[in-house]
């Protein structure tokens, strides 16, 4: 019985997905996601200084539709990896990412989060956060200026706007 039920729901889902991806609806769904990105408050290394600055009066990425960082990751859909991810932190990063509800996006901020940066030959770091998470936008710099982070947010919104709405994938 449950197998039949699952098959039915599965078919229903793919049908809904087809409908949702018809252009005006797809645009509407994506648009509703665009301006309410809630980042997780996870600081992995020193780029957090510039992330803090980006949230505050001078640069204020809040006006682009990124809420101020928020405590509970159950309500978040954006994770900004600020700098180096050490091996000790990597476990937590994976855990935090797995607890976030879908759809979720990842911004890798800083040279260390992209490739290891200055610490490329260290024994205790992950060389690039894309080894453990699927990264949407990379922000180069050491640390990147807040304007660069704001630009990354714009790029991410562009990606969401053009993207396909995916509801079957449970992930």
């Amino acid at each position: 019985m449950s197998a039949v039920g699952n098959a039915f729901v599965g078919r229903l889902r793919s049908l809904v997905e087809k409908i949702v991806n018809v252009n005006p609806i797809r645009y509407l769904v994506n648009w509703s996601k665009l301006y309410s990105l809630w980042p997780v408050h996870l600081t992995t290394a020193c780029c957090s200084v510039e992330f803090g600055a980006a949230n505050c009066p001078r640069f204020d990425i809040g006006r682009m539709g990124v809420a101020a960082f928020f405590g509970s990751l159950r309500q978040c859909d954006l994770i900004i990896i600020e700098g180096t991810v050490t091996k000790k932190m990597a476990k937590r990063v994976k855990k935090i990412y797995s607890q976030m509800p879908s759809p979720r996006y990842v911004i890798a901020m800083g040279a260390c989060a992209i490739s290891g940066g200055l610490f490329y030959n260290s024994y205790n770091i992950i060389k690039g956060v894309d080894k453990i998470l699927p990264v949407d936008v990379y922000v180069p710099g050491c640390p990147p200026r807040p304007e660069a982070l704001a630009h990354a947010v714009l790029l991410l919104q562009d990606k969401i706007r053009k993207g396909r709405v995916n509801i079957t994938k449970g992930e």
Partner: protein
Amino acid sequence: MSSMYFSVGPQHPGSGHFRMKITLQGDIILNAEPDPGFVHRSVEKIAETREYLQNVPLIERQCLSDVSSVTLAYAMGIEELLGIEVPPRAQYIRVIMCELSRIMSHLYWLAILGIFVGHSTMFMWGFGDRDILITETAEKIAGARVSYSYIIPGGVRYDLPDGIKEHTMKTLDYFQGRLKEYDAIFFSNPIFKRRTKGVGVLSRSEAIRLGVTGPTLRGSGVRGDIRKDAPYAAYDELDFEIPVYSEGDSYSRSLVRFREMKISSSIIRQAFENLPEGDFKVKTRKKVPEGEVFSRVEAARGELACYLISDGTRKPYRLKMSTPSFRNLPGFSLMKGSMLADMPPIYMSLDYWPLETDR
């Protein structure tokens, strides 16, 4: 009543890249144990594989909110081994940069303290002023907002740009006014006072016994400041006082930092007034002669010591940074016996910077 164990961080609005293991009984903290290591990037090991000058940006990453003092300790060590005298103009520029980065660091701390005790205005003001006033001045001088690698062995990288004196003076004038407003809205605020007065008291003898440093030490009535006690750069030619409060609670530690911002701006003014003409750096050699050196500076969070051992090659044999945050780790024992709601003010009053601890 049974006790409860939980961990604060690393994903928590009040922790940063850091975890505290806290044991609670009811609302009282029985034990608070720091668990550092989330940002251990092995700076000391990597430094052994790179040349002396290449290490400047590397070691500066361990404290991105107060970069000048870290690089200054390292540069002073190398200069002592090389036996070179840094020109007076460079010494004064170093003082200016160190005090600028002290204000930068204290404003960052003040902003985070504000949000920790639920004062959002202070958070916005602190970060806003930091960006508009101080970071911009640093950018004009050194070419980058926070990570400028400006202080190098032998002096500083470039000379001061034209018109920077007027710009800085204007900035500091405005900043003076802002400090009065901070006092009115935040430090005289009865809610803030009640949340921090008598919270996390560290006695004078205990402060010395635990080996804490910086404003944490000065908040407990000890006049310990390397700038006065073992002067470096041009600090012996400038006139300034060391703020000391003897209560030893979170409020007095906060007041020390608050008054230091004012004193730092007066040091910057004096340094600009007395700025000598001349060279801003001298030539250094790539190979550093054999020997060992222990150089100390007063960073924003306290005494920072750099222990450097050279074996006569282009790379350090061993570089040990004894950082103030690491030495303030025993201060977490202050949380024992206080209420859980007092944890954020105590934590913030230590001004703990995890990157500095882990290196």
